[in-house]
């Protein structure tokens, strides 16, 4: 009996620990049951609930407006507010909250009121902007992005276990860009923003020297990440990458707090099925523990363990579907053909030299 109780106690401790460390992250892929309601952009990896989009299609507008009229008459909601929602305004972007390291199997979760969480959205110009947590069958964050550049959204969950305070920081970095706004600053890699005032520990993705608004990570390409603690680079932070198919790789940050990660192509498709626009997701996890005596909810703790997560997409490598050799072959072939064509054409148009002969006799 004693033994069983002991095992149960140990088991429940382990379970709480596992739960506390269970990685929570922000994802822009909707759960299956919501897929039809969601519009996603491949290019910038954003998702939006269709009815929240800045939908300017006239027909849709009409349809939606009628629907909104009906809805409002039923629910008695403010018609004007509905109209604004359907008639334009900014698109509302969403991020789902997921739990588990496996991108494929991570569950979509909701946060209850007993959870100590905070959500923050920072604009490219480091301004705090509104973001809300929508609760329903699943939970998601909803926000607008009106400035051009990278937005950072954070979901921070605190949970004490034993003598350690676990802080799970789920971050997403989303680029808001429309080609219609032009590309004046395309040579300027969009600045990487980090916010020690929001989270002590943070991972940032360093920009490539010529990264522009259309930059996309690709399999085989190198990405550099840097771990920062209170704004300073940290050595020895553990960074793990998980790809959609389950490939995992763990590395430690160097003395500059940096790691280089190369996404592998962990899937193979037939030539005909190769889709260069297909996005595969990765999840980056980072762990860092500091020994620090702190007080949380009037209780003392001796350690803080940071669990940082960030997810983004990558595409198949360009070299998989483009061929410079074939480009050169076509180029050279057409060059040779057109030179020969011109040569033959010119030769044909040459007229033989004819000497003018005067018949002197005719003069007489």
């Amino acid at each position, binding site marked *: 009996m004693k033994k069983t109780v002991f095992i149960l106690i140990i088991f429940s401790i382990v379970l709480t620990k596992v739960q506390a460390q269970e990685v929570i992250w922000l994802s822009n892929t909707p759960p299956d049951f919501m897929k039809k309601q969601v519009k996603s952009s491949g290019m910038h990896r954003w998702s939006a609930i269709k009815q929240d989009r800045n939908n*300017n*299609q*006239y*027909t*849709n*507008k009409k349809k939606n407006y009628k629907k909104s009229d009906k809805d409002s008459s039923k629910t008695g909601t403010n018609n004007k507010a509905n109209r604004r929602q359907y008639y*334009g305004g900014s698109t509302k972007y969403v991020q789902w909250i997921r739990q588990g390291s496996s991108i494929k199997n991570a569950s979509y979760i909701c946060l209850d009121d007993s959870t100590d969480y905070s959500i923050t959205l920072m604009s490219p110009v480091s301004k705090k902007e509104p973001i809300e947590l929508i609760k329903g069958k699943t939970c998601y964050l909803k926000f607008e992005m009106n400035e051009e550049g990278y937005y950072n959204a954070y979901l921070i969950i605190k949970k004490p276990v034993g003598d350690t305070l676990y802080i799970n920081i789920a971050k997403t970095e989303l680029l808001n860009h429309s*080609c*219609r706004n*032009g*590309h*004046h*600053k*395309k*040579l300027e890699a969009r600045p990487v923003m980090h916010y020690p005032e929001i989270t002590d520990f943070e991972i940032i993705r360093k920009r490539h020297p*010529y990264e522009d608004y259309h930059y996309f990570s690709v399999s085989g390409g190198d990405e550099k990440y840097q771990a920062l603690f209170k704004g300073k680079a940290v050595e020895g932070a553990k960074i793990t990458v998980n790809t959609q198919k389950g490939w995992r790789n763990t590395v430690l940050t160097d003395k500059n707090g940096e790691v280089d990660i190369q996404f592998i192509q962990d899937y193979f498709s037939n030539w005909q099925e*190769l*889709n*260069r*626009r297909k996005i595969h997701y990765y999840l980056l996890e980072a762990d860092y523990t500091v020994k620090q005596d702190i007080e949380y909810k009037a209780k003392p703790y001796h350690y803080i363990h940071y669990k940082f997560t960030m997810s983004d997409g990558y595409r198949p490598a360009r070299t998989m*579907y*483009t*061929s*410079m050799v*074939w*480009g*050169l072959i*076509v*180029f*050279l*072939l*057409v*060059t040779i053909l*057109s*030179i020969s064509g*011109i040569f033959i054409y*010119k030769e044909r*148009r040459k*007229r033989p030299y004819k000497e003018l002969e005067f018949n002197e006799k005719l003069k007489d």
Partner: protein
Amino acid sequence: MQKLKFKQYIDNSNVSRFRFWVQIISFFIFVYGGYFFIEIASRLPIFSCPYVQGSPGGCYLIGVQHELNTSWSSLFSFRGLAILTSLATFLVFFIFLNKAWCGFVCPLGTLQDWITKLRKFLGFSFTRYDEMSFKKLKVIKYMLLVLLILIPLGIRNTFFGIPLPHGMHTPFCQICPARIILPLFTGDTSQIFIDFTDTTTIIMTSLGMMVAAIFLVGSFVKKRFFCFFCPMSALHFIFSKISLLRMTKDGDKCTRCGNCYRVCDVGIREIADDVISKNIVKDDCMLCVKCVEACPEDDCLKISFAGIPLFNATQEGFFKRYSGTSLTEYIKSIEPNKEQEDESK
């Protein structure tokens, strides 16, 4: 008096030499300017190609193709306004220089002039189209302009139930020689490729490579070969009349000597033949002003800006520019070679 002297100085000057230097400076700005943090605008009336890493701006054609990839309903709502705004930006720039954007600023035009110089240096002869071909071929640029407008619209809206593949987005950029050739000047060879993603991309990128090859060979045998087919030039012509920079002709003073036609790189016959029109900027003209330089009749051809005369044809200017060249050399320099004459028959 001072003013008159200054005007006389301008009329006697060698604008072609000035143009040569302006072209070099423009080429450097529009190919490398971005590296020096120069930013201009994204709706320029020339091939300032955003595919070139150092480009300080963007060409209007890519903008218009992106913008038109939209549904009819959006086109007539706020998106329509955005399209008009970008057209207005294009016009703000265009209005100042008219077609001189082509003659003085466009990097692709400059490149063609340099290829012509190389040909001259190597001693190869050049060709001109005969009148019939000239008339037939000049339609191509309008066709390209219409296609680059209709294809993006067709991708979103399906005309006559024919679905157009997404792979044809920005269709002109896909076949534009500037996209492939200009990045080479920054050491970037990444635009030389065939995209095997799907049949459309294979066809479009192959066409692009073919056009680039034809561009190089064509520019070698024919002056301003590509400009003759350039949809930007067609677009310029639509708005040419509202521009502040103008080229006018006084038909009464024209003796139809044909000097202007002989020096014209594009081969515009009307510049000599047309003694009726006052505005003599034709759709293929690039306002290079070579014809004004070669015109020996006082005030026959004139360049003006907002009504202010800038550069007039004068007998004195004509002889100044061509002095130092013997008459035979001069005739040789402006006379089309024998072969050309044959072809134009």
